[in-house]
């Protein structure tokens, strides 16, 4: 792959160590917690306590490979790959809906199986969406101020994907896709009244989407009052809250969770954070949330210091993906948001999510090497960078 030479004043620096450390730290936490949360179910269902750990380790290895690869590919290369990626994603999202191609689990058709490997097209779609929107909006720094030419087309892509995803059905991923698009538009300079107006217009549609499906309506009602049906729709949230509340300051001890003995559903996937909070307590939660904070801050730092508009939008899109999905997952697990099943980035069991996110992190790492100089007045960047840094007089 030919690497376009960077702009004159930009020299290639080292990869942002904080970025690498926080990603690997989260992956490490994820592997440990997947093992802890899944061992009971793994033993029960497959006679092997490390059944899920082994699979996650394999995915992690693959993810590391992807991350190294994408961190070495110049980030501008994704501009050319963006369109094919989006097309492929749309095709896969369509294909997964076809019985015979898509596999059903937990009442939703989300997976495509290829031999022993299952993957979720929606995770690839998130990556593609970011790459494509950054490309689209980087070229249109003025049209972005127009509703029809700048704002609606990106939302159209995202909306098309979201509609396909909703058919699976997968409300959480649809929310993430639209959220990513909105965040990238926001960063690209879309007019606030456009975004706000669309939000007002979309609100009834979103409300309809949330309330039309009986199971989603149940979830909303359960969020408002989980105790209304503690054995039914409120069950997830209550069991999650029980786990989190049982953790205390330092937790009941790694591997000592009791809620993982089938009380809490989706233990090693969507609700892995609850097990983490139960076993490692507030201390563990602070560490994990801190890792996300560092990761998100360093991604946006890379965006702010990016040498070009494309790089900045790319990083801010990935940042929105990681941060939005993390906040959504953590909010659900702590009862702050209605139940929507999205994996906790880098931590939840699930190969597609892990590999896609690690690839995105690799892209950000590549970008971080081309960071521009920062103006001294840039308070945020100054906060985000090392205090030992030399400042311009």
């Amino acid at each position, binding site marked *: 792959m030919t690497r376009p030479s960077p702009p004159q004043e930009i020299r290639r620096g080292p990869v942002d160590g904080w970025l690498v450390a926080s990603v690997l730290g989260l992956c490490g936490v994820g592997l440990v917690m997947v093992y802890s949360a899944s061992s009971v179910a793994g033993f029960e269902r497959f006679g092997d306590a490390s059944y899920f750990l082994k699979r996650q380790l394999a995915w992690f290895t693959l993810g590391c490979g992807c991350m190294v690869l994408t961190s070495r590919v110049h980030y501008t290369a994704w501009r050319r790959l963006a369109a094919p990626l989006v097309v492929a994603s749309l095709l896969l999202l369509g294909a997964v809906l076809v019985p015979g191609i898509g596999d059903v689990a937990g009442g939703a058709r989300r997976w495509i199986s290829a031999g022993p490997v299952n993957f979720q097209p929606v995770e690839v779609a998130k990556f593609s969406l970011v790459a494509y929107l950054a490309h689209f909006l980087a070229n249109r720094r003025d049209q972005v101020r127009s509703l029809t030419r700048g704002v609606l087309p990106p939302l159209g892509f995202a909306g098309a994907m979201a509609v396909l995803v909703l058919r699976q059905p997968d409300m959480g991923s649809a929310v993430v896709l639209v959220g990513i698009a909105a965040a990238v538009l*926001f960063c690209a*300079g879309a007019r606030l009244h456009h975004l706000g107006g669309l939000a007002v217009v979309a609100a009834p549609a979103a409300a309809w989407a949330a309330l039309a499906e009986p199971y989603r309506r149940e979830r909303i009602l359960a969020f408002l009052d989980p105790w209304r049906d503690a054995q039914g729709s409120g069950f997830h949230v209550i069991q999650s809250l029980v786990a989190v509340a049982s*953790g205390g300051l330092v937790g009941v001890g790694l591997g000592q969770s*009791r809620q993982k*003995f089938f009380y809490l559903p989706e233990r090693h996937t969507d609700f892995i954070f609850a097990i983490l*909070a139960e076993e490692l307590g507030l201390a563990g939660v602070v560490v994990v949330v801190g890792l996300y904070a560092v990761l998100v801050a360093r991604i946006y730092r890379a965006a702010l210091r990016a040498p070009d508009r494309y790089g*900045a939008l790319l990083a801010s899109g990935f940042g929105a993906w990681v*941060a939005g999905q993390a906040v959504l997952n953590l909010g659900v697990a702590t009862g702050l948001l209605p139940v929507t099943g999205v994996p906790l980035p880098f931590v939840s069991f699930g190969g597609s999510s892990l590999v896609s996110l690690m690839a995105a992190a690799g892209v950000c790492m590549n970008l971080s090497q081309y960071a521009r100089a920062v103006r001294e007045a840039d308070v945020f960047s100054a906060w985000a960078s090392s205090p030992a840094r030399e400042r311009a007089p």
Partner: protein
Amino acid sequence: MKRAALPPRGPRSGAPQVLALPRWRLKWLAAGWLVALATVAARVAYLQTPRFDHLRELGRRQQVETVTLSGSRGRIYDRAGRELASNVIRDSVYAVPRAIRDPEGFARKVGPLLGLEPSAVVERVRRGGYFVWLARQVSPEVAGRLRQLGLEQELGFEPEEKRVYPFGRLAGPVLGFTGVDNQGLAGLELRYEQALRGRPGRAIRVRDAFGREILEGRQVLLQPRRGQDLVLALDSVVQHVAERELVRTVEHYRAQGGAAVAMDVRTGEVLALASVPGFDPNSVPDGTEAWRNRALEAYEPGSTLKAAVLAAALEEGVVDAGWKVTCPGWLRIPGGYTVREAHGEAHGRVGIADVVRLSCNVAAARVGAELGPARLHRYLRQFGFGEPTGVDLPGESAGILRDPSQWSGSDPYVLAIGQGVAVTPLQLVRFVAAVANGGWLVRPRVAVAMRDPEGGLRRVAADERVRVLSPRVAHTLLLAMERTVADGTGTAAAVQGYRVAGKTGTAQKPSPHGGYQPGRYVASFVGVVPVDQPRLAIAVVVDEPQGAYYGGVVAAPAFSRIASQALWVLGVPPGEVAPQAVRRPGGD
């Protein structure tokens, strides 16, 4: 943290706006994410405050339960240390309704193995929850086949102790039985429930969402204490002999049932206590009829009570060795009744020995009349009739001995021949034991000692005895009773090589509507052996024998066989040879 190769920094102001992006938006967005993350952390901290104790409480309630650990139930041994009641570990089977998706299919698989109607299984499963018993203490074969069904989620097994009685029917009515929770429901199991059960312990059990125990999760709060073992006075061999001979007699005479009691006259220790028909406590039949212990039930004794009346009269000096009375074969008594001899024969001149030897009704009735209601009642009461013996078995009858104030003029005559009064076989044995041991009324006892788990042996109760007869009267009466076997109504009770004393009894069964039931008799024999050094008092009572009904014919031979084998088992040496028995037809 010095960065090695920072890109060259632009001038302080006027840096090229390469990005052409609203930088503040990125900063604010990033800051927004950080605030959201911080909110989550704060929320987690908030969830740890006492405000959310109810969540932790809910967790504890669903994850943890307190379970009772039953201490191993004490075993029951006979006097030779043979195990009469023991325990085995059996699996009890429960269903986990929450894990069962198809109750009908589940019931079809599981029901037949457990001997349950599928509909009954479905009904239980539909109750929901994580735990419902399907069957308790199933056999290892059934448990094995259930385990092979591959229903790990749906079925659970809990090892439990099950009571077993290695000797089967032996002493069933004495031992009693236990319920599914190993609680004593009858017999000694019920009487000594407290001691046998031990002290239950408590443990905290951590369970998964299907109600299954998590391996690491049991925490014992209080160790259970094993129950105490019970050591009985009962001798399995004597018991077996008594049961065998009683069954043989009951079957031979096609009787309704019977009872036999063998007691050590010196201590009141019950060596055998048989009740026919009995039951196998390993598989207890339904209905209380089969659970009866006839040795503890009252019946109208008839002539066997004459010995007690005579004892009272001798004690009071109403009669003495020289006392004689003429028996014309009948006696008119107050109320317009007539007392007759069994065969209508006239005994002629009879003395005190003949009251028991020949079982003379006329003489006995006159003795009773001379004693009068007050003294007769007082002595019978003193001899232990009309109140429970205090034996350590539940459900003992007191018998019936009415207060003299309710007696009519004929009652002293009638009671003296054992009518209008009800006694238990155990009461009779206890009385003749007093005659045999020189006048001491002992308290009959089945269990003699308890052994705690550490091995310490403790007597159940101190010997308790009351003098009710002077040694002289006891001896006189004993010799009179020996005449019954020597040349009286009970010759069939003789035991080769031993001197035997006893008294026959043949009583028509009273009707619940007044009067007596024709053709329905209770035949009995109560006796002591050996006379020279009394060891055993034995009573045999047969209810409604067919074909023959005299105590001397039906019950006396059984007494003889039980006594001879029991003496051999107990190693009682033969004494001076009894006077040659003059065989006479059994009569009463």
